[in-house]
C-alpha cells in the first residue's frame, strides 16, 4: 500500500439493521440502511453526501468513524499517527481496527453533529467539553490543556473566558462553534460534519459555513459534509455523492453534477430546491411523484423507479449498477445515456 492513496477510501460499505419484535426479540426483518456504498475522500477536499431523510447518509457518516459498526465493507484510512516515526503513512481499515488502533485513529478523524443542543452535555462547562478529547487521549498537562482550550475557543470565534460557562448560556450558532472546537482539539485531518447547519437560522448558517471554509484553508482539513440542503452542499463541496434509500445513485464533481446531472433523482432533488427568486421559483416544474418508500421494504429493481418519470420496464426488475459515465462521474441508472436531464449550472 502506497502513501499516494486517498486519505479515506470506502469500499462496498454496508450497514444492515435487524428489526426485532415481540418478547423474545425475534428478528422481524432487515433494513439496509447503507447498501454497498463506495467513495473516497482526498486530503483537504470536501465530499458532500446528500439525500432525503432515511437515505442512509447519517448512518454512512457514523460508520466512517465506526460509531456504528459496519456490517460489511472496508473503510481505509491513511493514518500518520499509526505509522512508525519517519515512515510513510499506513493504510488501516477502520472497520476491523483494534480498539487500541481505533483510539489513535480518533485523533485523525472527528465528527460534528447536527443538533447543537443534545451533542453537548448540559452538565459540563464549555472548558470541560472542549478539553474532553485531550483528557481522554491524555494529551498535555492540565495547564497546557487549559491554554489549548482557550486558543481553540478563540479559533472558532468564541472567547477564551467562555470556558467557564455552560452550554445553555449559548445560542444555537455558538453551540455549534463549541462542537467544532471539540472536534478540532485533536487536530484531525478528516471531519465528518453531520448536518452541521440545518438546525441554525439563515444568518448563523453562513457564519458556520465560513468557519468551516476558513478551517479547511488553514489546516488543510478534509470534510465529509452530510446535508439535505443542496445549496449548502454545493457551496462548500468539491465533489458530491447522492444517496437514495441506502444506495449511492450518483457521484461527481460539484460542477459536473450541477451542469449535467445523470440520475433522475439528482435532477428532481435539484429542481426541488427553493430559489429566492419569485419568477424562477414559480416557473419551475418539480415533477417528483409520491413519497419516499419505507426503507424496510424498498421497491424491487431500481429503488427510485416508482417516483421516476423516465422509468421503463427494465427499471422495475433490475437494479442498475454504478458505472462511470465520464471520468470521476459515476451514476446508477439504466437510462443515463438515453435520457436528457436538465442542467442546473449557472
Amino acid at each position, binding site marked *: 500500500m502506497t502513501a499516494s492513496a486517498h486519505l479515506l477510501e470506502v469500499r462496498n460499505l454496508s450497514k444492515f439493521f435487524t428489526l426485532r419484535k415481540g418478547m423474545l426479540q425475534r428478528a422481524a426483518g432487515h433494513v439496509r440502511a447503507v447498501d454497498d456504498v463506495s467513495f473516497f475522500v482526498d486530503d483537504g477536499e470536501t465530499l458532500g453526501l446528500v439525500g432525503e431523510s432515511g437515505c442512509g447518509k447519517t448512518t454512512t457518516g457514523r460508520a466512517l468513524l465506526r460509531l456504528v459498526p459496519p456490517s460489511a465493507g472496508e473503510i481505509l484510512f491513511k493514518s500518520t499517527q499509526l505509522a512508525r516515526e519517519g515512515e510513510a503513512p499506513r493504510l488501516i481499515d477502520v472497520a476491523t481496527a483494534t480498539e487500541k488502533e481505533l483510539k489513535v485513529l480518533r485523533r485523525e478523524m472527528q465528527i460534528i453533529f447536527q443538533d447543537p443542543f443534545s451533542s453537548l*452535555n448540559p452538565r459540563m462547562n464549555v472548558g470541560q467539553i472542549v478539553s*474532553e478529547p485531550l483528557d481522554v487521549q491524555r494529551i498535555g498537562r492540565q495547564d497546557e490543556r487549559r491554554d489549548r482550550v482557550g486558543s481553540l475557543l478563540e479559533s472558532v470565534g468564541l472567547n477564551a473566558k467562555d470556558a467557564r460557562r455552560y452550554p445553555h448560556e449559548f445560542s444555537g450558532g455558538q453551540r455549534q462553534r463549541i462542537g467544532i472546537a471539540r472536534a478540532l482539539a*485533536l487536530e484531525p485531518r478528516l471531519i465528518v460534519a453531520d448536518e452541521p447547519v440545518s438546525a441554525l437560522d439563515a444568518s448563523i448558517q453562513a457564519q458556520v459555513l465560513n468557519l468551516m471554509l476558513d478551517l479547511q484553508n488553514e489546516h488543510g482539513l478534509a470534510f465529509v459534509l452530510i446535508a439535505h440542503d443542496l445549496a449548502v452542499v454545493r457551496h462548500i463541496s468539491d465533489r458530491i455523492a447522492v444517496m437514495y434509500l441506502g444506495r449511492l445513485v450518483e457521484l461527481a464533481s460539484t460542477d459536473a453534477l450541477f451542469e449535467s446531472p445523470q440520475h433522475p433523482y439528482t435532477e428532481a432533488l435539484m429542481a426541488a430546491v427553493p430559489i429566492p427568486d419569485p419568477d424562477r421559483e414559480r416557473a419551475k416544474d418539480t415533477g417528483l411523484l409520491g413519497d419516499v418508500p419505507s426503507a424496510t421494504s424498498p421497491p424491487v429493481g431500481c429503488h427510485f423507479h416508482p417516483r421516476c418519470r423516465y422509468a421503463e420496464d427494465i427499471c422495475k426488475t433490475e437494479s442498475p449498477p454504478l458505472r462511470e459515465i465520464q471520468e470521476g462521474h459515476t451514476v446508477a441508472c439504466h437510462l443515463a445515456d438515453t435520457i436528457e436531464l436538465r442542467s442546473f449550472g449557472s
Partner: protein
Amino acid sequence: MSIVSRFKRDRVGLVSACALVGLYLVALTAPWLAPYDAGETSLREVFRPPSAEHLLGTDQFGRDVLSRVIVATRVTAKITGVAVLLAVVLGTCGGMYVGYVGGRLESLVMRLTDMLLIFPTIMLAIVIVTIAGPSEGGVIVALGLSQVPKFIRLARGVTLSAREALFVEAAKAVGAGRWHILRRHIWPSISSPIIVQATLSLPILVLSASGLSFLGLGVQPPTPEWGAMLNESKDFLRTSPYLLAGPGLCLFVFVLASNLVGDALQDALSPRASSEG
C-alpha cells in the same frame, strides 16, 4: 438558576424539608428527648388521658405514649432510611449495569422487574417478611428489596437515554472508553432522578413499614412503633380514643413532609424547570 436557589424559593418545600430534618433530629436524640422510659410499665397508671404529666396519656400498660411515639420515630427513621439506601444502591447499580451492557441479561432483568412492579409494595414486603421473619432486620430487607425494581427501572431508563445521547456519541468519537463515559456522562445524568425517586419512595416505605407493624408482621412488641401502637389502640377505641392521636399524627406529618420534599425536589431538578429558568 441553580437547583439550590430554585429549591430555596419553594417555601412549602423548604418548610417540609425542615420538618423532615426535624423528625430525623428527633430520631437521633430520642432517648434524651423522651420524658419517660418508653418501655417502663406501670400498672397504677394505665389508660391515663392526656394531662400535663403525660401529654399524650398512657396506654394499657401505663407506658407514656409521648415517649413511645418519640422512640418510635427513631425506629421508623432507621428502618426506612436503611431500606431506601439499600434500594438505591442495589437498584442504581443494577439498572446502570444492565442498561449499559444490554443484551439478553437486560431483557431478562427487565422482564423480571416488570413482573415485580405489578405487585404492590406491601405485598412484596409481606412475602419477604414471611421468608425473613418478622423483625427489624426482616422489615428493612423486605422494604428495601420491594423498592429495588423501581430503581432498576429508573436507572436503566436514564442510562439508556444517556447512552443514546449525542454527547455520548461525541465522547466515543474522541476515543473515550466505557469507564469514562459511565463516570463523566451517565452518572451525572442519573444522580438527580435517583435522588428524587428516593425521596418519593420514603413516604411509601414509611406507610408500608407501619402497615406491616399494624398487621403484626413488622417490628415486634414491646419495641414502640407507630403502626403497632395503632394496632394496639384499636381495641381501646371505645374507652381511650386519645391513643390514636399521637402515632396517627406523627405518621401523617412524616409522610406529608417527605411527600412535599419529594415534590419540591422533582420540580427543582426537572429539566423543564431548568430550561425555563
